[in-house]
């Protein structure tokens, strides 16, 4: 039974987000037809909060809330799923210059998975770093669909998928209530926990899904000669 999750979102715990978790869940309920997700993953900037227990909210809204982090490395930003105490002792999540290869390898060894996010974004995405440095080893998947991407950035992410055979995920990168779950990832398997998610990211089948409303195409400018000839 498939599971659709927004793998990348920020609540008020991230200093640049203005979205309370409950408001996110309420919005998903409101917009469930257009954004049919089963839950979200909170990926707060440069921190991991193990203590909050979201079971009451999960029950109230019938949605899953999983916890992860977005950290900053010498190859750009990465989402870390399956964070443990051992990981937060080994890596200072507030450090904006973590060693990406060490992070990928040791997080993997400790039972989690690190996924480069918005790889097509300038400075903080893999694409630009690969232009000047050797590619990372042992990358499982990259985020090719990011709700905060600008023109062309997700296309650049796809180039990495084609070139290196990475798997692809999607997430909203939401910092505002109304932007949650605009992009997500559809997993073939049934996911009920962070352990399930880590296992599926490493071994399962999944694809990014885009729930953003289609914009009306901007009419192309008609060249003068064509207009005058009634073309």
């Amino acid at each position, binding site marked *: 039974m498939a599971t659709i999750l927004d793998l990348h979102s920020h609540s008020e715990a991230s200093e640049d987000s*203005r979205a309370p978790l409950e*408001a996110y869940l309420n*919005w998903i309920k409101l*917009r469930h037809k257009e954004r049919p997700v089963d839950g979200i993953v909170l990926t707060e900037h440069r921190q991991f909060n193990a203590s909050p227990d979201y079971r009451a909210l999960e029950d109230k809204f019938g949605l899953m809330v999983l916890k992860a982090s977005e950290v900053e490395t010498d190859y750009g930003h990465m989402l870390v799923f399956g964070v443990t105490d051992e990981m937060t002792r080994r890596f200072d999540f507030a450090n904006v210059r973590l060693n990406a290869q060490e992070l990928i390898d040791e997080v993997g060894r400790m039972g989690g998975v690190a996924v480069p996010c918005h790889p097509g974004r300038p400075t903080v995405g893999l694409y630009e770093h690969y232009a000047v440095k050797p590619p990372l080893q042992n990358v499982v998947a990259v985020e090719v669909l990011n709700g905060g991407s600008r*023109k062309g950035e997700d296309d650049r992410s796809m180039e990495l998928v084609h070139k290196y055979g990475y798997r692809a995920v999607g997430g909203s990168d939401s*910092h*505002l*209530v*109304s932007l949650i779950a605009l992009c997500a990832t559809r997993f073939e398997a049934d996911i009920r926990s962070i352990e399930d998610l880590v296992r599926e990211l490493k071994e399962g089948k999944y694809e990014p899904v885009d729930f953003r409303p289609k914009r009306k195409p901007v009419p192309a400018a008609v060249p003068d000669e064509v207009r005058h000839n009634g073309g």
Partner: protein
Amino acid sequence: MSIMKFDAVKIGDTLGPQEIHLSKDQVRTYARTCGMDVPRFTDDEGARAEGLPGMIAPGNMSLGMLSRLVTDWIGQSGARLARLGTTYRQPVQPGHTITLNGFVTHVEPAEKRVEIDVWIENEDAERLVIGTASVEFP
């Protein structure tokens, strides 16, 4: 569209969209009125010398436009704008059409308070400024 009563407000209600074609003169007027008569807000060459793509609207001006989006929505209902927070993600450049939008995201009956997402987007629907507002009804 002005809202009159708290009870009529629902999650999902929209503010705007309000399209503004921002002109350089408008930006200069704002900058000069508010003691911000510096190159980055008044002159393309001067702004480029600072690494900007051209002259930009001050962040305060974006905050002012979003504030007006909310106070227009409030209309004469007696409600007040209690809080407005903004994050400037990309420069807002004059000579472009920007669109201001908002969504009511939370209604708190005990405090007669409404929370609103607000943002400014460019012609490519990229969000240049994002923010949230709290409105308190009498």
